[in-house]
C-alpha cells in the first residue's frame, strides 16, 4: 500500500467526479458511492498505517511525476506518509466516513443530496492531498482544494442569502491567509530554492533570524486564516450556514485543523525562533479566551459549537507554539477534538432534525426524554470537551495547560498558563449552558414541535463517535506522543520546573471546570428567557463577537467600498470621459466639416481654381523669391 499512496486521494476524487458529472442518473445510488469512497480510503489508510511500523525511518516517500519545472526550480508531485500524516489520514477518512454515513440520513430530504456528496468527496480528496504532500506546493494545492470545497459547502443552500454571504465571507478571509502562505512559499523558493519538506528543514539553520521570523509569520498568517484564529476568526462561525455534516467534518474536525498541521509540519522553522513561538502562543491564548467568551453569549446551538471550535483550536495553537514536546500534545488534542466536536455537531444536527431545523437553544429544553441516544452521545461529547476524567478531553487538554505552565520565564508561565486554565473554566461554563438548555429544564418549544429520535443511519455514527470521545484521549495520550517522534520533536530530557506543580495544575483545572459547569447548571437549570435580556458591557460585547466584525467593517470593508466607489467614479467620469470626449470631438468636428460638400458644381470648381492659383502662386514665389 505504501507504494500506492496516490490511491488514497484518487478514490474520493474519482467518486467526486462521478457524482458531479453523472447528473440525475446517479441520484438513486450516488450517496452510497459517496460513503464508500472515504471508507475505502480509510481501509487503505489503515493498511498503510500498519505497514509504517516495519519501515526503516517510518516514512514512505514517493514521487509520482514532476509537477512543474522552470529553470533551476523543480517541483515534484510527491507524496509522503509518515506518522504525522498517518494520524491525519486516519482522522480524515475515519471520522469522515462516519459523517458521510450520517449525512445519508441528514440530507435524505434534500434534492441536492448527490451534489452534496460530490462536494463532500472532493473535500476529502483535497484534505488528503493536503496532508499527504511531501512539499509545500502540494500542501498549498490541497489547502486551496479544501478552501474551494468549504466555500461550495457553506453556500450549499445557495438560494439563501445568508448562506451565499457566509460562503463569500469565508472565501475572502481565507484569501488573506492564503496570500500569506503563498508568499511564504515564494520566500522559500527565493532563499532556499526548494519547497520539499526535508530539504527546507535541513537548511533552516542557514537562514538569518529575520528571514526565519518573516517566513514563520507568513505561514502563521496562512494557518490563522484556515483555522479561524485571531485576527482571521470571523468567517468560521458564519460558516455554520452550511449543512450540519459540513460543520462537523470541515469546520470542526478536519479542515480548520489544517493550520495546526501546517505549523506542526513546519516545526523546524517555528522551533528556530523564540519570538515566532511567542507570537504563536499569544495568538492561541488570545483566541482560546475569545472563543470561550463569545461562545458563552450566543444562543444559536451551532454558533456556540463553532466558537468552541475556535477556542479549542486556540488550545492547539498554544500547544504548537510552546514547541518541544507540546507539538505532539497539540496533535493529540486535535485528534480527540475531531472525535468529540464531530460528535457534538452531529448531535446538534440530530436535535435540529427532530425540531424542524430550530437552532435557538432558548427554544429547546427537556429534549433528553425524547432523544435518548442523541442526549447520551452529546453528553459524552460535553463531558469530553470540558475535560472531566477519564474522558478524552482530560487526557489531551490537561497536558497542554501543564505545558503552558512549564516555561522558562515565570511571566510567560503565568500569562499563558493562566489563560489556558481560565479557558478551561469558561469552556465548562458555556458547554454546560448549551447542554442544559438543550436537553434539560422546562420545554420552551415553539408550537407544533414533535421531537423524535433520528433514524439509525444517523445515530450509529453518533454512537461510534461518542465511544471515540470517551476512550480516544486515554488510549492515545502517551503512545501516540512517542509514536509521533521523528516528524515532531521529542520532549526535552531535562524537566522544566514550572511555577506550579503538575498535581496543582490538574487540581486547579478540575476545580475551575466543576465550578464553571456547576455555575452554568445552577443558572440555566430552570431554563432561560426567550428574549435577549439587557446585559452588562462584557456580555453585550460578546454578543457582538467582541466587536471584531464591527472593527473589520469599519477598518477594511468601509474604506474598501469607498475606494471602489471612487474608482468607479474615476472610471465613469475620467477614463470614459476622455474616450467619449475624444469621440465626440471627432464626430462633432467632422459633422461641421462635411458642410463643405455642398453638391454645387461651381463651388467645387471655385475651390479647384483657388487651389490652382495657390499652387501657381507658391511656385512663382519660390521661383522669384
Amino acid at each position: 500500500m505504501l507504494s500506492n499512496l496516490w490511491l488514497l486521494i484518487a478514490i474520493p476524487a474519482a467518486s467526486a467526479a462521478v457524482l458531479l458529472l453523472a447528473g440525475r442518473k446517479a441520484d438513486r445510488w450516488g450517496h452510497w458511492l459517496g460513503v464508500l469512497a472515504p471508507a475505502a480510503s480509510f481501509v487503505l489508510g489503515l493498511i498503510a498505517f500498519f505497514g509504517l511500523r516495519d519501515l526503516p525511518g517510518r516514512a514512505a516517500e514517493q514521487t509520482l511525476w514532476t509537477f512543474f519545472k522552470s529553470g533551476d526550480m523543480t517541483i515534484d508531485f510527491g507524496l509522503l506518509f509518515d506518522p504525522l500524516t498517518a494520524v491525519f489520514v486516519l482522522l480524515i477518512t475515519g471520522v469522515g466516513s462516519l459523517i458521510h454515513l450520517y449525512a445519508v440520513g441528514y440530507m435524505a430530504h434534500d434534492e441536492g443530496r448527490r451534489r452534496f456528496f460530490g462536494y463532500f468527496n472532493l473535500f476529502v480528496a483535497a484534505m488528503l492531498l493536503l496532508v499527504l504532500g511531501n512539499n509545500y506546493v502540494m500542501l498549498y494545492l490541497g489547502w486551496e482544494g479544501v478552501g474551494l470545497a468549504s466555500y461550495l459547502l457553506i453556500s450549499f443552500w445557495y438560494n439563501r442569502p445568508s448562506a451565499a454571504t457566509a460562503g463569500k465571507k469565508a472565501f475572502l478571509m481565507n484569501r488573506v491567509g492564503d496570500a500569506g502562505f503563498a508568499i511564504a512559499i515564494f520566500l522559500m523558493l527565493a532563499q532556499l530554492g526548494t519547497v520539499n519538506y526535508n530539504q527546507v528543514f535541513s537548511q533552516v539553520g542557514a537562514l538569518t533570524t529575520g528571514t526565519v521570523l518573516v517566513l514563520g509569520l507568513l505561514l502563521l498568517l496562512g494557518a490563522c486564516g484556515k483555522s479561524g484564529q485571531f485576527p482571521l476568526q470571523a468567517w468560521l462561525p458564519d460558516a455554520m450556514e452550511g449543512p450540519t455534516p459540513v460543520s462537523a467534518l470541515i469546520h470542526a474536525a478536519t479542515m480548520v485543523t489544517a493550520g495546526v498541521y501546517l505549523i506542526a509540519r513546519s516545526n523546524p522553522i517555528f522551533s528556530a525562533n523564540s519570538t515566532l513561538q511567542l507570537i504563536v502562543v499569544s495568538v492561541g491564548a488570545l483566541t482560546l479566551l475569545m472563543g470561550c467568551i463569545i461562545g458563552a453569549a450566543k444562543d444559536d446551538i451551532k454558533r456556540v459549537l463553532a466558537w468552541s471550535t475556535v477556542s479549542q483550536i486556540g488550545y492547539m495553537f498554544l500547544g504548537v507554539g510552546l514547541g518541544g514536546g507540546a507539538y505532539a500534545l497539540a496533535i493529540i488534542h486535535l485528534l480527540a477534538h475531531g472525535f468529540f466536536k464531530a460528535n457534538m455537531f452531529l448531535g446538534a444536527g440530530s436535535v435540529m432534525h427532530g425540531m424542524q431545523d430550530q437552532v435557538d437553544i432558548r427554544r429547546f429544553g427537556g429534549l433528553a426524554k425524547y432523544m435518548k441516544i442523541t442526549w447520551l452521545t452529546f453528553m459524552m461529547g460535553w463531558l469530553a470537551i470540558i475535560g472531566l476524567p477519564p474522558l478524552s478531553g482530560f487526557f489531551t487538554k490537561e497536558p497542554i495547560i501543564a505545558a503552558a505552565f512549564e516555561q522558562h520565564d515565570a511571566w510567560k508561565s503565568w500569562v499563558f498558563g493562566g489563560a489556558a486554565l481560565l479557558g478551561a473554566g469558561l469552556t465548562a461554563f458555556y458547554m454546560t449552558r448549551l447542554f442544559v438548555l438543550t436537553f434539560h429544564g422546562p420545554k420552551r418549544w415553539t408550537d407544533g414541535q414533535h421531537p423524535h429520535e433520528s433514524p439509525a443511519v444517523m445515530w450509529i455514527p453518533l454512537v461510534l463517535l461518542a465511544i471515540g470521545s470517551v476512550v480516544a484521549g486515554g488510549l492515545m495520550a502517551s503512545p501516540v506522543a512517542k509514536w509521533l517522534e521523528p516528524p515532531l520533536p521529542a520532549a526535552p530530557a531535562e524537566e522544566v520546573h514550572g511555577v506550579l506543580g503538575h498535581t496543582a495544575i490538574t487540581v486547579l483545572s478540575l476545580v475551575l471546570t466543576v465550578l464553571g459547569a456547576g455555575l452554568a447548571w445552577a443558572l440555566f437549570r430552570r431554563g432561560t428567557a426567550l428574549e435577549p435580556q439587557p446585559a452588562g458591557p462584557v456580555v453585550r460585547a460578546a454578543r457582538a463577537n467582541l466587536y471584531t466584525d464591527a472593527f473589520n467593517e469599519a477598518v477594511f470593508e468601509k474604506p474598501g467600498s469607498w475606494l471602489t466607489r471612487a474608482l468607479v467614479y474615476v472610471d465613469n467620469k475620467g477614463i470614459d470621459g476622455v474616450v467619449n470626449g475624444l469621440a465626440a470631438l471627432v464626430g462633432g468636428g467632422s459633422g461641421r466639416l462635411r458642410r463643405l460638400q455642398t453638391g454645387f458644381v461651381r463651388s467645387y470648381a471655385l475651390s479647384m481654381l483657388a487651389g490652382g492659383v495657390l499652387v501657381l502662386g507658391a511656385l512663382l514665389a519660390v521661383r522669384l523669391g
Partner: protein
Amino acid sequence: MTPMWYIVLAAVLFSIGAVGVLVRRNAIVLFMCVELMLNAANLALVTFSRINGTLDGQIMAFFAMVVAAAEVVIGLAIIMLIFRTRRSASVDDANLLKY
C-alpha cells in the same frame, strides 16, 4: 507681331472660361466654357512651341484636342441623361451628391 500677344489672348480666354464655369448654371454653357479654357491652354502651348522653336508644345496641343473630343462625347451624354431624368439642364439642380 510678338508672340507675347498670343499669350495674353490665351490668358484672357482662360479667364473668360473660368469665370463662365463659376457663374453660369446651364450645363451646356458650362461645358462650352470648359472648352474655352482647354483651347486657351492649347493656344498657349502652340505659342510656347513657336517661341522655343520646338514641336513639343504643338504635339501636346494635338493630344489635348483628342482628349477634349473624348470628353465632349462623355460629358454631353451625361448632360443628356441628367436632362431626361430631371427635365432640367441647370447644374444647381443636380446637387444630390452632398453631405
